[in-house]
């Protein structure tokens, strides 16, 4: 099957186009012309077809890759400079390592792989770097060498594939509740505890609960940068990918369902429990949840990613490319940690000496 890649070039001067988060348009690096996604899509539909070339000949033996490795690799020709771009079989958008032009693999966005939605980047790389620097600030236990060595400028904009789940959850819960009344007849303190069975049933609708569909993206990172503002979400167009990295999904919608169901059930349960009011104590006795309908939409959501290593250990930082919410685990400088404990202990000892001297001298 022939495979092709597409560069978005400026219709005016032929320079490479990048998606500009600020203007939300495609912008030429050279002549600063801007184009809407629709304009470029229409204009270059024909060009892209022309750019289709026969895939580069690629055999495992010649390249020295194992069969297994070769099976997951793809080679494309860059339409700008003709160089071969080698990437894995999930890569949907990248840049040419030779000419640096943003490159999109249309085959990764076609047929069943075509995303329904995309939230375009809102924050530029400079803003991402600024936010990461702010994220490091004020963290006294962060090793200085980590801050200095983690190549912050290598932060990359990436469209991460997500499944957005729409569902209705039928919730049926029963609670054991008590109401306590105390009074006194002068001789006795009387406590009356009335017991109730409380039943609540309801239908809770959820819209676009996100779960990342990229195996190499840790779930806890992608969960932690929520929420995304869906009001900026638009129907998918390939031109939004220009200038960013993107992988197509490699986690099926059904594979994430269990995790998403749990989130929806927790929320449905909390909502029903919150309607049980006026009791002294409420304990859930029976819970039953059933998803009565559901569908998953495929979407690309914008994320800035910095993957770095420190003392041989990988560290990942991700930022919501729309809201700027930054998350990531950072290493602790254990030398600073224990130094802090030691300093406070020494301050305590010195203070103890001063107070003892003061007590002996009759200061207080």
């Amino acid at each position: 099957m022939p495979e092709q890649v597409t560069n978005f070039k400026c219709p005016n001067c032929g320079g490479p186009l990048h998606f500009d988060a600020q203007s939300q348009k495609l912008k030429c690096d050279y002549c600063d012309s801007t184009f809407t996604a629709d304009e470029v899509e229409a204009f270059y539909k024909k060009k892209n077809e022309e750019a289709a070339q026969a895939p580069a000949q690629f055999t495992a033996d010649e390249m020295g890759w194992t069969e297994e490795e070769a099976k997951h690799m793809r080679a494309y020709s860059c339409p700008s400079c003709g160089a071969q771009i080698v990437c894995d079989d999930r890569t949907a958008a990248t840049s040419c390592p030779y000419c640096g032009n943003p490159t999109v693999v249309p085959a990764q966005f076609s047929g069943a792989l075509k995303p329904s939605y995309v939230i375009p980047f809102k924050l530029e790389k400079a803003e991402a770097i600024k936010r990461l620097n702010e994220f490091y600030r004020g963290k006294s236990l962060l090793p200085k060498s980590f801050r200095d060595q983690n190549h912050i400028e290598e932060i990359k904009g990436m469209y991460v594939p997500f499944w957005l789940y729409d569902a209705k959850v039928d919730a049926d819960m029963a609670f054991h509740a008590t109401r306590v009344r105390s009074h006194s007849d002068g001789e006795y303190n009387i406590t009356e505890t009335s017991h109730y069975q409380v039943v609540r049933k309801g239908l809770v609708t959820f819209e676009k609960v996100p779960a990342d569909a990229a195996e190499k993206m840790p779930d806890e990172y992608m969960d932690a940068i929520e929420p995304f503002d869906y009001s900026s979400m638009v129907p998918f167009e390939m031109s939004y990918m220009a200038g960013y990295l993107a992988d197509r999904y490699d986690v099926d919608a059904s594979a994430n369902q269990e995790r998403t169901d749990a989130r929806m059930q927790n929320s449905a349960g909390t909502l029903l429990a919150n309607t049980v009011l006026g009791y002294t104590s409420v304990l859930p006795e029976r819970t039953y949840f059933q998803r009565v309908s559901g569908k998953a939409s495929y979407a690309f959501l914008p994320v800035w990613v910095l993957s770095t290593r420190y003392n041989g250990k990988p560290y990942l930082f991700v930022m919501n490319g729309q809201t700027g919410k930054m998350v990531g685990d950072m290493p602790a400088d254990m030398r600073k940690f224990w130094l802090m404990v030691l300093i406070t202990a020494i301050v305590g000892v010195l203070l103890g000496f001063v107070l003892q001297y003061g007590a002996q001298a009759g200061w207080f």
Partner: protein
Amino acid sequence: MKKTMRLMLAGLLAMISVLPMILPVRASDTYVYDETDTLSSDELSTLNAKAEEISTAYSCGVYIVITTDQHGYSEYNYAKDVYMEYDLGYGEGEKANGVLLAIAMDERYMDTVAYGAAKDVFTDDTLQSIQNDSVLPYLREDDWYSGADGFLSAAESTLKNGGYVDYTPQYTGGTNYTGGGDPVSYQTASDWIATHGPLFIALMGGGLGLIGLIIALVMKAQLKNIGIQQQADRYIPKNGVTLTAQADYFLYTQTSRVRIPHDNGRGGGGGGGGHSYNSGGFSGGGGGSHF
């Protein structure tokens, strides 16, 4: 780093602020108060020294307060209210025990009252006897010093012979706590620090080191901020919740009865950092006499 310094400073201040709570509390040095200058300064200091000696020996405050008038208090409550007004008592909270002779000069009225553990020996009858035998005869003669001295002597005798059980925490050299009874010397915070230098310094070092460890752990925890989402509330649209059934069924009622104790006990619940009293915490009072 500024944040760290602020946290450490806050820890240090917290440590210093709790010192008075963990160290022995100094009892007031004044036991005899005279608003009216009825007693000469020599008499006042002699009586005060004697009252302090008795109070310290038995860990029970023995007080005399001479007021110009009844301070607007009723005769029934005069001694109790003066006890509270002067914040009397040896020890803290409900252990702030003591016995008081209160004299209102304008009304020529006197009364006695006991609070806390002192109530056990200074019963209503005992206080009445002390008033009648050791105080009133002198006050009727305007012999204020002898009346006051008589009260102190009678109080000492009562404490000595009355099987007084002391509930005040006592420190012997700062190391041995005794539940009560034997008269012991009571050290102030500064005395304790002065005589327990190495222990105090080690406590300060360990205490602040512990605070430093807690701060460091909090700062270390701040380096991690990832986690799986457990809820999906924000993805519920407006009007996305429909309650289809809502029923509350009454099952049964359990009733428990606890008899109300009518013996108010010692009363006088302790308040943090000061004394608090209730009328049930006193013996005597209201049984005073004019002279």
